[in-house]
C-alpha cells in the first residue's frame, strides 16, 4: 500500500531512528531493513533515504563514520547520537498518543 507523502514525512525519520537504535548501520542495510521490517510499507529508495540521512545528520540526530576495514570498499555507517535518542523517545511517545487517539476515534482497530 502506498502511504501518502505527508504521512511518510513524519514516519520516515522515526523509522530510521528506531532502526539505528539497535546499532550503527549503512545505507543499503537500512533500505533493506525498512522494507523488511515494515512489510514494504515504509520502503524508500536511495532518492529518499540518503537525503533523509543527511538531514538527520545535519540536525545532530545522527553521526556518521567511514569504515574501510569491514568491506573491500569504503562504507559510511550511521549511528544515533544522544540527541537522536531523545528525539526517538519523544517521537515514540507522540506516535503512541496518536495511535491511542485514532483508536478511540475508531479510525483504527474498528
Amino acid at each position, binding site marked *: 500500500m502506498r502511504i501518502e507523502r505527508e504521512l511518510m514525512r513524519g514516519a520516515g525519520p522515526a523509522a530510521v531512528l528506531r532502526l539505528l537504535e539497535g546499532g550503527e548501520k549503512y545505507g543499503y*542495510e537500512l533500505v533493506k531493513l525498512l522494507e523488511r521490517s515494515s512489510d514494504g510499507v515504509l520502503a524508500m529508495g536511495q*532518492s*529518499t533515504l*540518503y*537525503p533523509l540521512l*543527511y*538531514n538527520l*545528520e545535519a540536525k545532530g540526530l545522527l553521526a556518521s563514520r567511514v569504515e574501510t576495514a569491514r568491506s573491500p*570498499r569504503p562504507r*559510511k555507517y550511521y549511528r544515533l547520537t544522544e540527541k537522536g535518542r531523545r528525539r526517538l523517545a519523544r517521537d515514540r511517545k507522540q506516535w503512541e498518543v496518536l495511535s491511542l487517539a485514532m483508536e478511540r476515534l475508531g479510525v483504527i482497530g474498528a
Partner: protein
Amino acid sequence: MPTASSSLIHRIRFTPMRDVLRGRLTGRLDYRSRIDSTDLPEPAKALVKRVVKRTRLWRLEKVDVADELMAHFADGLDSGASIEELSNSFGDGRRVARLIRRAKKRNRPLAWHAMRYLGWTLVALVVCYAALLVRFIRARPSPTVNYLQVMNRPIERLTPQERAWPLYRRALLLIGQRTYDQDKELRDLLEVRFDGRRGAELKTWLDGHREAIELLRQASRKPALGFILGPDGSVNDPQLYPETQRLKSQNVWDDSLVSVSMHMPYLNDLGIARGALAAEARLARDQRDAAGLSADVVALLDMARQMQSDESVIGQMCAIGTRMVALEQIDGTLVDAPKLLSEAQLRGLAHLLVKPDSAAELIRLDGERLMYCDSIQRMYTDDGRGSGHLTFEGLRFLRFAGAVNARMSDVPAAQLATLPAVSLVALSRRDVRHEFDRMFESAEARLARPIREADWATFRNQMEKWRQSRFTSMRYAPLTWVVPSLEGLHMTAERYLGKRDGVLVGIALELYRRQQDQYPARLELLTPALLPRVPVDRITGEPLLYRIVEGHPVVYSAGTDLDDDGGKAPLSSAGAPDPWRAANWVANDQAVDGDWVLYPEPRSADPDDD
C-alpha cells in the same frame, strides 16, 4: 583514484589543499575518476556520475556522495539484486540530486551559513540601493505653483502713478553705469565728510547730479517701489542692466525665487540712491538748509518704507539700513546744528520714527515662506497627497542655494554614492514642510518679542543638533540653510530700534533744552509732553540710561556686559568708538566691556576717518 596518466594540472585541481601543503598531489577530489576506477556496471557508474554532478556540491561533498551511492549499488549487487532493479528503485535522478544538495548544505559549517546569509543580505542591500539610485535619479520634481507670479501680483496691481521705480530708474541712468570698482568708489565718496579732504569732490558730484537727486526725492514719495521681480520683470532692462541679457542667454537664471533673490540689482542701486540722499542731507545741514535737510531725511524714511514692503528679507534688511542712515542724519544734525530744524520739523521726524516699533513690524517672513514653498516644489516629487521625496534635482538645487556641505561637491564619486542615502534619510516633503512651518511660526513669535526675551538659544541649539552628525545633516539639509539667519535678522532690527529710541530721546532732549535752556536731570522729565514714556533698554529691560557728560547728554544702554560704564562705548580694533560691539546678543561672542551708546553717535575727530 586518479590514474597515473592524469595531468599535473588536473591532479593539482582535484587535490585538497591539505594534501598539497604536505607535498602530495593525490587528486582525490576527482569523483569521476573514483567512479570510473570501480568495478560497477557502466549504467550504475553513469547514474551515479549524473546525480553527483547535478548536486553542484563542493568537491569533497561530491566525493562523499559518490562513495556512498557507489557503496549502495555495490551492496545491492552483492546481495543479488540486478542493476535494473537497483536503478529502478533509485528514484528520479534530478530529484535525488536536489534533495541531496539541500541536505548536504545544511551540514555545512556555521561560518559558511553566516557568510551565505551575509552575502545574500549584501546582495539584497545592493539591489535595494540600486533601485533607490534609479528611483532617485529618475524622480523629477513637478513644480505646480508659479510663486514668482504670486510675489509679483500685488506689484502688478499698482498703477503706473503709484510706482516709484520708473523715477528711480531715470535717476540711476543719470547717475550713470558703473563697474564694480566704480560703484565702490562712488559709495566711498558719498560717505565722506564735507570738512574732510574729499569734501569738495563730493560737493562737486552732488552739484553735477541735481536732477538725479530731485528724481530720487520724487520717487521716494510714491506709495510703493513697484519693481517687478524675475528675469522678465523690471530687471529686464538692457539700458540699465545690460548684464541681465548675458545671464539670460547663458541660462544661468531661472524663475525660482532663490534664483530671483540672487539677482536683485535694484537693492544695490537703491544703496547708491540712499547714499546720495544722505550726502545731500549732510550738505543741507552744512549749508543750514533746514527745509532741504528735512526733505532729504523724509525721503530716506520714505525710501525705507518702500523697501520695507519688499517680500524678500534682503529688501527688508536694506530698508532697515536706510532707516539707520536717516537716523544718522538726525543724530548728526542734533549734535552739529541743534537749532537748525524747527520744533515742527523735529516733531514731524519723531512722528515718522515712531513706527515700526518692533522687529516683527520691520521683518516680515511672508516672502521667505513663499521662497521656501517654491524651493520645496523644486526639490521634491509630488505624490498628490501633500508628500514626496527628495530628488537628485533637489540636491542640485540645495547646492545651488548653498546648503549642501562643500566637501560633498569636492568628491564627485562619493557624492554620487551617497545621494540615494540622502534621499532615503532626508525628511519627506510633508515632514519638511511641517517642520518649516513650525520653525517659522516659532521665529515669528520670537520676532514679536524683544530679543532679550526671545530665547533664540533654543532655536540655535535645535540647529546645532541637526548639524551634529552626518546623518542629521543629511536629514535636515533642506531646513538648515534658511533658518540660521533669523536670529541675526532680529539683532539687526533690535539695533535699529535701539538707535531709533536714542534719537527719539535726542529729539525730546533738544526740544526740552529749547524750552528750559538746559538738559533735564533725568529722562522722566521728558514725559509725557515730549516722550510718551522713557524707552526701555533693549538689553536689560530697564529704562535707558542717561547722563550729562561735559555739558552734553548721552543716552545709552548698559550693553551686553550689563554693566553701566558711564556712557563709554567700546573701541574698535582701530581704536575708534564702536558702540555696536556692546550690542551683540549672539552668545558666541563674549560680552564686550562698554556701553551701547544710542545718542549721540560717537564719532572720530578725524574728518577723513570714516
